[in-house]
């Protein structure tokens, strides 16, 4: 699409300076809310700071963090979410989207129904699921009892807490599903027809035509899904709090991660260390660990985007 003027037209002159003018507020924002804090986080990670006294402690915070069992526990929990929750969401979203492409009558209503839960506020959805899955009066275990199954303790047991959150995550997967649905409908019809003429069945059509065509969209959703799993906060925190019956709203006495630290994620550990225990230097170490993990996946995404930019 490059214009083919031999001499650049008048309005091209000084374009860089004008662009800078339009970008100025954003550039200030990036420096103040991204650049500076990132450097300051590194700086504070070598200090003990509780909002009142600032004391240089060298590598103490780092040593403490690497000896902290809760750091490892939260890393394991995050890994669990990446390995189980994210794929569960993607597979489910893709399955439902594929199903919706086949359905002619009532597709609009079904689409709305599957999308709706993704709009429910995280807090409301989590509180609702803690109720639905509570073993005493919750409807899910009662319905399970009707067919002779003794339901688990869900949010009350360390083994079932993360699977319970996965159910919540799958319920709210409407966004991803809509993205997949749009991608599936965009696959050129003649590709399927060509494959059908070659004698490809439904499964081979899906593998050889659908998957390759929508793979950029799948990739994008997978990476963003992983990045959101890395910063998973609200649902885990609220599930712990409501299920444990913690009363303290400010949360100073509440130990996050109930039951048995099974729902503790690194962002929660950081939050409690920094803003409840006010060990801000130590929290900065957690922040840098979190940064390192998210950076790995961000770099993968950036490479994808640079490649796409190069093509267009």
């Amino acid at each position, binding site marked *: *699409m490059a214009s083919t003027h031999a001499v650049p*037209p008048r309005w091209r002159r000084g*374009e*860089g300076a004008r*662009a800078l003018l*339009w*970008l100025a*507020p*954003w550039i*200030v*924002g990036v420096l*103040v809310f*991204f650049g500076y*804090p990132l450097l*300051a*986080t590194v700086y*504070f990670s070598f200090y003990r700071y509780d*909002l009142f006294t600032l004391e240089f402690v060298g590598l103490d915070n780092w040593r403490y963090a690497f000896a902290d069992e809760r750091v490892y526990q939260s890393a394991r929990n995050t890994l669990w979410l990446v390995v189980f929750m994210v794929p569960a969401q993607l597979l489910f979203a893709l399955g439902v989207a594929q*199903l*919706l492409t086949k*359905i002619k009558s009532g597709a609009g209503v*079904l689409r*709305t129904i599957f999308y709706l*839960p993704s*709009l*429910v506020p995280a*807090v*409301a959805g989590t*509180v*609702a699921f803690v*109720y*639905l899955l509570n073993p*005493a*009066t919750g*409807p899910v275990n009662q319905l399970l009892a009707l067919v002779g199954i003794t339901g688990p303790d869900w949010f009350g047991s360390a083994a079932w807490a993360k699977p319970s959150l996965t159910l919540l995550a799958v319920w709210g997967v409407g*966004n991803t599903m*809509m*993205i997949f649905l*749009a991608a599936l409908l965009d696959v050129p019809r003649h590709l399927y027809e060509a494959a059908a003429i070659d004698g490809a069945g439904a499964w081979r059509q899906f593998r050889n035509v659908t998957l390759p065509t929508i793979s*950029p*969209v799948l990739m*994008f959703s997978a990476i963003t899904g992983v*990045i959101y799993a890395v*910063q998973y*906060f609200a649902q885990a925190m609220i599930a712990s709090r*409501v299920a444990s019956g913690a009363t303290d*709203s400010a949360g100073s006495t509440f130990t996050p991660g109930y039951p048995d630290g099974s729902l503790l994620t690194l962002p929660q550990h*950081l939050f409690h260390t*920094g*803003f409840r225990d006010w060990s*801000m230097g130590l929290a900065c170490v957690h*922040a840098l660990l*979190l*940064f390192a993990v*998210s950076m790995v*996946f961000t770099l993968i995404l*950036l490479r994808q*985007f640079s490649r*796409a*930019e190069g093509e267009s």
Partner: protein
Amino acid sequence: MTATVTAGSRPARTVPAVRRRRRGLMWIAQHAIAIALAIMFLGPIAFVALTALMTDEQALTSQLWPQTWNWANFEVVFARSDLLAWTFNTFVYASLSTLFMLVSSVPAAYALSRFRFRGRKLAFLVVISTMMLPPQVVAVPIYLIWARLDLTDSLWPLIIPMLFGDAFSIFLLRQFLITIPRDYTDAARVDGCSDTRILFTVILPMARPAIAAVALFSFFYCWNDYYGPLLYAGVDQEGWTLSLGLATFKALHSVQWNLTMAATLLVTAPVIIVFFFAQRVFIEGVTLTGVKG
């Protein structure tokens, strides 16, 4: 669609009976699965609504259907909590943030999509990086900035940064704006339009669906946000948002699930109502996020 299939080589449509029956069974299976899934998706909302209408005594039992429809529960929720104040705070937070976001992000996306300059690609990569950065990574230094300005214990630390552009909105707007053909703006250039006039007379009218989508997303993000208010809103309940209030509702105001579920419904209802009025904007916006660069 059928025209292109039947038009070529194939003679009259004579689908064998076996294949027709198989296709019929497929149709039934697909619809059955879809309807079953739809019921499972609506189930949580239905059970929440049923419980919200139970009496206090019944909510302690394991019955699933309300014996009497206790609509007064909603009044009790309003009476026992600061729900009105929370709604007001949430509304202020969401609408100011959205307004500020638009004022700052539209120009940035305009520059990234319409101007050619060195570092444009780098700027776009910075947008993606900031979008992907977990907000907790830079939380400590940013908190210290607001503490020094004495703005903690308010929602301003969440609203003011929106004046400096929101990465996700810039990303989304930019993705839309690059699809507007250059010819439109070039034509306006030839007519001697300034950058500002082109933005207002050419770009903005064409970008209306994208702007509506980011505005809605931003509003909903703030409406649903828990982490931000938890960090900044402080301990005074009067200054809380709906998310903060609901998160502690069960512990503070009621040991029974019925009132908590009524509160849950009240927090969710506005979102659902807005969705039904702006369904198309949502769907278009969501599909926009999935498009690759």
